[in-house]
């Protein structure tokens, strides 16, 4: 199995680079203000859109305008998704006849999909009408990914722009692009074309794409199960201790859900969104039918985060800058992936003691068609990026295996990260690394010829510190309040891990869950939604301010006496900075959660 893991990883890396390199060249073209000027087709598609929206595609925006447009666009998205969920019962394409989504859950879901988090406190196939899935959730999957890429474009433009060519006060000073143009072009010319091809591949492999409701089928043999007994009013019957009375039932049939799955699946992975059509997400055979689709889904999750980093190198005119950031990301991801893999090779000592076969590793919560290799690779990729799709239950991983997705999330989604968000958050760490190194060698810190000054570091500090503040305060509140503790399904360190994972996943806009925490309550629906919003825009706003400030600065072309920001030394410095700033914040919480659980499990198992 170990050979299989490393060979699979090698193949994965080769295919990824082969696809990401040409895609990065295309991203550079799409980001250019001159994109499509010589193409009649592009003009024919875009011109009516600019006319309807009243936008001049040649006009640039300064960072406050760009940010305000972004905020207004996203808040309107939240309102639209919220209202669609609330009125879905009266709208068409609702074959199962689902009623309106409860207000707290609708609010949480609306914020979740707009912020690219896709945290789901509900079961999709039992809650959302097809129209809601397509018009609210899938549309936001496209738009939230486009927003992330747009911010990455804006920051890169800010770093590239030569301030001396546009004197301060002139109409061109500090311009970083046009938000509306960026979102339209990224959606039309990057996301939609790839998703059309990708959806067809998924359908070819067995993913479904229809508008049916539930289809009742007779199973080969009756299924026996236990369920809470209900009274005439449909309420659970309770015993003397207040616990639900269970009854043993058998059924000869099964309800198979239908829906437009493949089209949502494609952008769910490509846009690092992660919100599944089904509650089981990519573990469901209609979302991820084969080992091949599992490979393709892993590739598509990490494709755009890789391509945008390489595109950054091309845009700043020095491809080594992109490769350096990519190398830092790849080293950390492979290391974490290996930890998860080797942790999952060892089954739980309690299951082994009970006589469960140990040769396949820890198989609890994993699909047989993916196994330990396909599950641990997927887990590391989906949490290193801010995707959050899952093909195995992270809650069922061994304590150290589960610590891998948790830590990757808590690092701030910089190990490839989300579409666009990975690059701009990593650039915040790059500036921190350059600043620290500048202090150490006694020189004014500079990145790509631009001086890093007091204001830039203030913005960097806000971007880096806001997320851990929200995560740790949220987790502390959940542990302190009865409403927070009520959602925990496991006592002890595992319960703390569940809560830390929920707040970390929401605030860092990942969206995956340590299954087991009941988060569909008013406390978690509202609290986590606020965390998602703060995590998303608490980073975007200072990054935009940084972009604007950088755009107005002169760019020095002289390399004399400057610290190189490429090469192995800088890769090491960057990784060190990410761990020092990002990970140390959470060490106490990680020690009380997964580390304590690991010690408990193996100490009890020891003779």
């Amino acid at each position, binding site marked *: 199995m170990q050979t299989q893991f490393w060979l699979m990883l090698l193949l994965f890396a080769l295919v990824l680079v082969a696809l990401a390199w040409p895609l990065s060249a295309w991203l550079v073209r799409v980001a250019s203000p001159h994109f499509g000027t010589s193409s009649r087709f592009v003009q024919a598609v875009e011109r009516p859109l600019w006319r309807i929206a009243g936008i001049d595609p040649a006009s640039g925006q300064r960072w406050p305008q760009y940010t305000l447009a972004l905020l207004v666009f996203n808040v309107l998205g*939240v309102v639209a998704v919220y209202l669609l969920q609330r009125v879905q019962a009266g709208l068409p394409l609702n074959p199962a006849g689902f009623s309106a989504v409860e207000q707290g859950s609708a*609010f949480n879901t609306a914020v979740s999909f707009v912020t690219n988090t896709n945290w789901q406190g509900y079961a999709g196939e039992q809650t959302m009408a097809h129209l809601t899935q397509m018009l609210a959730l899938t549309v936001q999957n496209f738009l939230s990914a486009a927003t992330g890429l747009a911010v990455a474009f804006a920051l890169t433009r800010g770093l590239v722009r030569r301030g001396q060519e546009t004197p301060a006060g002139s109409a061109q000073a500090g311009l970083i692009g046009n938000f509306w143009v960026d979102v339209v072009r990224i959606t039309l010319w990057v996301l939609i074309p790839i998703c059309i091809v990708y959806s067809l591949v998924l359908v070819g492999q067995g993913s479904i794409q229809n508008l049916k409701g539930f289809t009742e089928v007779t199973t080969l043999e009756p299924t026996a199960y236990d369920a809470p007994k209900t009274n005439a009013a449909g309420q659970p019957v309770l015993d003397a201790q207040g616990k639900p009375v269970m009854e043993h039932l058998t059924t000869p049939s099964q309800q198979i859900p239908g829906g437009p799955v493949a089209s949502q699946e494609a952008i769910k992975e490509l846009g690092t969104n992660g919100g599944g059509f089904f509650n089981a997400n990519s573990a469901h055979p209609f979302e991820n039918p084969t080992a091949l689709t599992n490979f393709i889904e892993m590739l598509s999750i990490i494709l755009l985060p890789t391509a945008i980093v390489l595109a950054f190198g091309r845009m700043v005119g020095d491809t080594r800058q992109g490769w350096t950031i990519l190398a830092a990301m790849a080293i950390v991801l492979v290391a974490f992936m290996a930890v998860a893999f080797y942790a999952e090779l060892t089954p739980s000592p309690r299951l082994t003691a009970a006589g469960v076969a140990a040769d396949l590793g820890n198989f609890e919560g994993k699909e047989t068609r993916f196994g330990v290799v396909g599950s641990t690779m997927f887990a590391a990729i989906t949490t290193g990026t801010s995707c959050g799709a899952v093909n195995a239950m992270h809650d069922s991983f061994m304590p150290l295996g589960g610590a891998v997705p948790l830590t990757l999330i808590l690092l701030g989604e910089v190990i490839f990260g989300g579409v666009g968000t990975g690059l701009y958050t990593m650039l915040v760490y790059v500036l921190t690394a350059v600043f620290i190194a500048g202090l150490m060698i006694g020189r004014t810190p500079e990145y790509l010829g631009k001086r890093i000054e*007091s204001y830039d570091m203030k913005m960097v500090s806000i971007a880096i510190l806001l997320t851990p503040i929200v995560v740790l305060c949220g987790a502390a509140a959940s542990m302190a309040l009865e409403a927070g503790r009520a959602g925990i399904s496991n006592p002890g360190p595992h319960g703390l891990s569940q809560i830390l994972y929920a707040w970390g996943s929401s605030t860092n806009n990942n969206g995956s869950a340590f299954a087991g925490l009941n988060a569909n309550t008013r406390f978690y629906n509202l609290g986590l939604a606020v965390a998602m919003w703060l995590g998303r825009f608490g980073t975007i706003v200072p990054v935009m301010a940084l972009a604007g400030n950088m755009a107005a600065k002169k760019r020095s072309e002289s390399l004399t006496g400057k610290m190189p920001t490429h090469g192995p030394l800088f890769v090491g410095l960057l990784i060190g900075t990410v761990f020092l700033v990002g990970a140390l914040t959470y060490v106490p919480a990680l020690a009380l959660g997964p580390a304590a659980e690991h010690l408990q499990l193996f100490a009890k198992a020891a003779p």
Partner: protein
Amino acid sequence: MDDLLMLTLIGVLFLAGWGLAWFCERLSRRGRS
């Protein structure tokens, strides 16, 4: 009633984002003056 509360919350979230942008803009002006 709950719908109104949720829509108000959405407005508050927007104001939080806008407020942070305003704060960052103020800091940049202070730096220039």
